[in-house]
């Protein structure tokens, strides 16, 4: 009877068992790693979308009264970058990157002046916004109580993307912005908290983000 090779066989069996254990553990760890990586990427996309939204708001608050005709009450086209109500498709969150590149403004960019100003990340196309004027509400302000003659309501769509192709977040915000009065606009790029713009007005409901939701 020849027993040579038994040690090798036993060793190989042990190695196989240990390898199986290691592979199982590594598989679980890889799955967990993928889960947290996906979450981190989605969070990154969300932050990018919120960044774009805050720059869109800053840009809106920085516009001078002269940029909007005071007698106009609906779809008063501001500088390029502001679309008319219904000009933007119903579900821009499902539009391609090419659509967003053509229509969107990168965070920190100024749609009127062309060249990009202010903050722009390493990949500016990761953080984009578009805006449309939804509604204008004239205010009867004979007593000068509100400090403005009307409020424009703007819908901002902002898109942020992460590293993965599926990591895309699109948010929608409806922002009110008073027009026609003796008040200060903000600097663009902003140098102070945006809430300073709305804090000039006594009427709490007429300024700032009045509606927000996640679209994708």
């Amino acid at each position, binding site marked *: 009877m*020849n027993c040579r090779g038994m040690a090798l066989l036993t060793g190989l069996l042990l190695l196989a068992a240990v390898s199986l254990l290691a592979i199982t553990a590594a598989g679980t760890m890889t799955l967990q790693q993928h889960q947290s990586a996906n979450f981190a990427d989605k969070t990154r996309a969300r932050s990018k979308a919120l960044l774009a939204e805050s720059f869109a708001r800053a840009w809106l608050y920085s516009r001078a009264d002269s940029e909007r005709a005071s007698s106009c009450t609906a779809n008063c086209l501001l500088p390029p970058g502001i679309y008319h109500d219904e000009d933007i498709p119903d579900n821009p969150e499902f539009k391609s990157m090419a659509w967003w590149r053509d229509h969107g403004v990168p965070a920190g960019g100024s749609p009127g002046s062309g060249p990009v100003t202010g903050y722009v990340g390493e990949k500016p196309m990761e953080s984009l916004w578009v805006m449309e004027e939804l509604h204008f509400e004239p205010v009867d302000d004979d007593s000068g109580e509100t400090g403005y003659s009307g409020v424009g309501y703007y819908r901002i769509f902002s898109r942020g993307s992460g590293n993965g192709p599926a990591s895309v977040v699109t948010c929608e915000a409806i922002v009110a912005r008073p027009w026609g009065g003796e008040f200060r606009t903000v600097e663009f790029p902003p140098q102070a908290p945006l809430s300073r713009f*709305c*804090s000039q007005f006594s009427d709490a409901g007429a300024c700032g*983000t*009045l509606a927000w*939701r996640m679209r994708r």
Partner: protein
Amino acid sequence: MTRRNCGITLIELLVALLLTAFLLLGLVQLVTAAGTAMRLQDNQAQLQDQARFAMHLLADAVGQAAYSPEPWNPDFEIEGIAAQTMDSVSANSDRLVVRSWSDLNCFDNRNPDTQSGKPRFYIRESTFELNGSGNLARGCRYGPSLAELVTQVRRQGIVPGVESFQLLFGDDQDQDGNVDRWVRAGHWSNERRVLGVRAGLLLAGPGAVVETGTRVHDILDVRISSRADGKLRQAIELTLALRSRRR
């Protein structure tokens, strides 16, 4: 006389057994330690997963509360935090009820009721509280008006292993756009001045992996003693903004 190749003496066998016993002892300890570490890591990963899911769920619901498609139109006025939001509805659980206008129902499907080809906006009401099985449960109602809300999801447990769910609400008393104080449900000066929600959760892992012993956890100033069941626990606190109320 030729020596047999495969035979061993008793002494050889005993020495071999002794050596094997030592080796096995070390191996058993190694495998036990590795198993414990793996179970611990698995429990930790599951806890983190539960925490992520709860965070995602609550952040989405609170972030979108009070959404109105036409904020200038009084017909679309809505309470973001509904009056049914309550403190201590059951042991270790508060209840959060958020409302918004939405063209998507509780299952995120488009509303079949349309106008000019677009889905109409109905009220969507989401409720979060703990159910009897220790899960963070979500209920959801959807309808054209508050009087016509239809239950589409009835207290469905979605985040397992939640032992405590506590809430505080950020009240902007002077309306300057900043939270002045954090209060319990219903103690705010005006629902419209609630700018944010603080949610505290105590999560427990699925299995016994740590030394047994009770521990006191402080969840948003509420003291909770955990059971001595050897489960891994994690307390998380989130501060969530009602994004429809940012100036």
